[in-house]
């Protein structure tokens, strides 16, 4: 079976939306379910390398390793839950096309084995993100979208500089061949390529010096859309960034640099969130902080730390999915998202969901986030990076302050508004919460998978 069905099916569906306007919400669920089933069957015979139209270095190739398969399945799963959550609302053609396109973009990003093809999918997912940002069609949304487009265009210019430099110097676009010939480039040229890649992908992964715009984007869009940004998009960019770095065997100083950037990013995001008065901004800062931790986790060429990072990717994706969807329920009810709404709603179910989510983000037992942070910290102890360990622990305390502040608001004695949640949405949220607790208590199966994924990413493409 071909890998290309993962791209072709959603693409065909979004081209043909005109013919089944009223059933789009069901079709969306069906497509995601089909893709999940396909992913289940294709995972048995990894790794797969598939050439498109001609032999490998000349034409584009797609590579499905344990690493990319894990990320692809995660994205399809989140997209499935998202479409299931949307099934209670009316069919919207824009949401259908944009979620499909986002899925195509991220699947292409993680699977493609050709740097220029990665650029194409980079653009597809960026343009989808711009349109998703503008979806509310008010001044806020367009403000965010325009800022996003300016910064995104700069990112793609830098990515293009990297690609052009690579092709001029070593005359190839295939990721594996570039990895073989990467040493032929002079030291300065390597530095230029890596710096351009860092700026290009760093803007998209919302990492410290380049992430001043990101929080505004989260504020500009509705919480439902933020789910896609936080759980899918940034994870795909992080995977591609580090996958390329390990594939090309880049200098270890570069990885040390990204680790430093990660810890600075974590610290600044968590400190900034203390003064925030908008729930979406608080969650956005928390996402930036977690992305910083992921940067630390991915930067050490060490299997234990990487295992923790992969575990954290999974945990953070589903946790943020749950939190943003719950926030979406509140936002639709109150019409705004300032932290004052935490004083006003009355729903024991949502409060439990928020508590589980926050504790998992903080990394407290018995939730999934605890296992992730524990694995990362023990790995850091193993390589003797005690300063980094201390930094992560101290910054986590800051994180605790603002998350508990939000929780304390729910105890406020203001008149409360009762929130009723449709059964399906309740079931989705509850099952995610259950998964967080389950993987916190019985983490071994997921840890095993994470370890295989980690060794695949560190070991290169054929493992």
């Amino acid at each position, binding site marked *: 079976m071909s890998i290309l069905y993962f791209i072709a099916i959603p693409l065909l569906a979004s081209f043909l939306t005109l013919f089944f306007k009223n059933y789009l919400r069901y079709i969306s669920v069906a497509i995601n379910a089909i893709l999940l089933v396909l992913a289940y069957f294709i995972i048995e015979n990894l790794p797969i390398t598939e050439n498109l139209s001609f032999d490998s270095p000349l034409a584009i190739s797609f590579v499905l390793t344990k690493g990319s398969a894990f990320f692809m399945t995660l994205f399809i799963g989140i997209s499935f839950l998202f479409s299931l959550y949307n099934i209670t609302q009316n069919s919207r053609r824009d949401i259908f096309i944009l979620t499909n396109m986002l899925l195509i973009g991220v699947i292409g990003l993680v699977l493609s084995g050709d740097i220029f093809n990665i650029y194409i999918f980079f653009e597809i997912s960026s343009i989808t993100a711009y349109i998703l940002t503008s979806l509310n069609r*008010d*001044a*806020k949304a*367009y403000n965010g*979208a*325009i800022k996003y487009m300016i910064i995104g*265009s700069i990112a*793609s210019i830098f990515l293009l500089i990297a690609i052009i430099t690579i*092709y001029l110097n070593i005359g190839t676009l295939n990721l594996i061949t570039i990895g073989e010939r990467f040493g032929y480039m002079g030291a300065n040229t390597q530095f230029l390529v890596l710096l351009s890649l860092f700026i290009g992908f760093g803007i998209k992964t919302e990492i410290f010096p380049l992430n001043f715009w990101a929080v505004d984007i989260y504020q500009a869009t509705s919480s439902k859309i933020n789910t896609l940004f936080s759980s899918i998009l940034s994870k795909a960019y992080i995977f591609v960034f580090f996958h390329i770095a390990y594939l090309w065997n880049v200098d270890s100083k570069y990885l040390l640099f990204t680790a430093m950037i990660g810890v600075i990013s974590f610290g600044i995001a968590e400190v900034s969130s203390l*003064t925030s008065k908008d729930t979406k901004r608080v969650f956005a800062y928390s996402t930036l902080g977690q992305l910083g931790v992921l940067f630390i986790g991915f930067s050490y060429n060490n299997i234990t730390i990487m295992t923790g990072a992969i575990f954290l990717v999974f945990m953070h994706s589903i946790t943020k999915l749950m939190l943003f969807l719950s926030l979406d329920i509140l936002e639709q009810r109150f019409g705004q998202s300032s932290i004052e709404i935490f004083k006003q709603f009355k729903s024991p179910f949502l409060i439990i969901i928020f508590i589980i989510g926050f504790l998992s983000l903080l990394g407290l037992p018995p939730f999934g986030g605890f296992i992730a942070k524990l694995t990362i910290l023990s790995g850091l102890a193993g390589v003797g990076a005690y300063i980094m360990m201390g930094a992560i622990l101290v910054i986590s305390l800051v994180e605790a302050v603002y998350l508990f502040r939000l929780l304390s608001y729910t105890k406020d004695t203001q008149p409360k508004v009762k929130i009723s949640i449709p059964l399906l949405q309740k079931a989705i949220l509850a099952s995610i919460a259950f998964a967080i607790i389950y993987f916190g208590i019985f983490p071994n199966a997921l840890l095993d998978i994470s370890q295989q994924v980690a060794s695949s990413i560190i070991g290169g493409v054929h493992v």
Partner: protein
Amino acid sequence: MLDSFNQTPFLHSVITIGSFLILLIGLVGALSKKNLFKIFLSLAIAESSLFIYFIGMHFSIGKIAPIVTNKVTEFSNDMVDPIPQAMILTTIVIGIAVLSLALSFIISYYKLTGKMRIDDMNELGEDK
């Protein structure tokens, strides 16, 4: 004397310095101008400098276009590399897609708020 102007190294230096200056002008314009329209115009200029650089560096004196015609009957290494051309062709089309999307956003934003300058855009922020 005039002969040295027609050598490939001279051509490549001209292309490198020229397109680098254009890239610089574009990026400086994008970061310093405040009008939204000008910002995207500057980004388009910066992007097209990369196209010129990429195509130009793959050309050297005497190479011909990679097309078989009545005069040139077979493909050979005297032709310029076709892959950069295909890549740039793709990128130009992506460029107009992004530019038109940005302009539609600018129109919508302008019609809603009457603002065209980036330092007037104050809908988002901590106290909003």
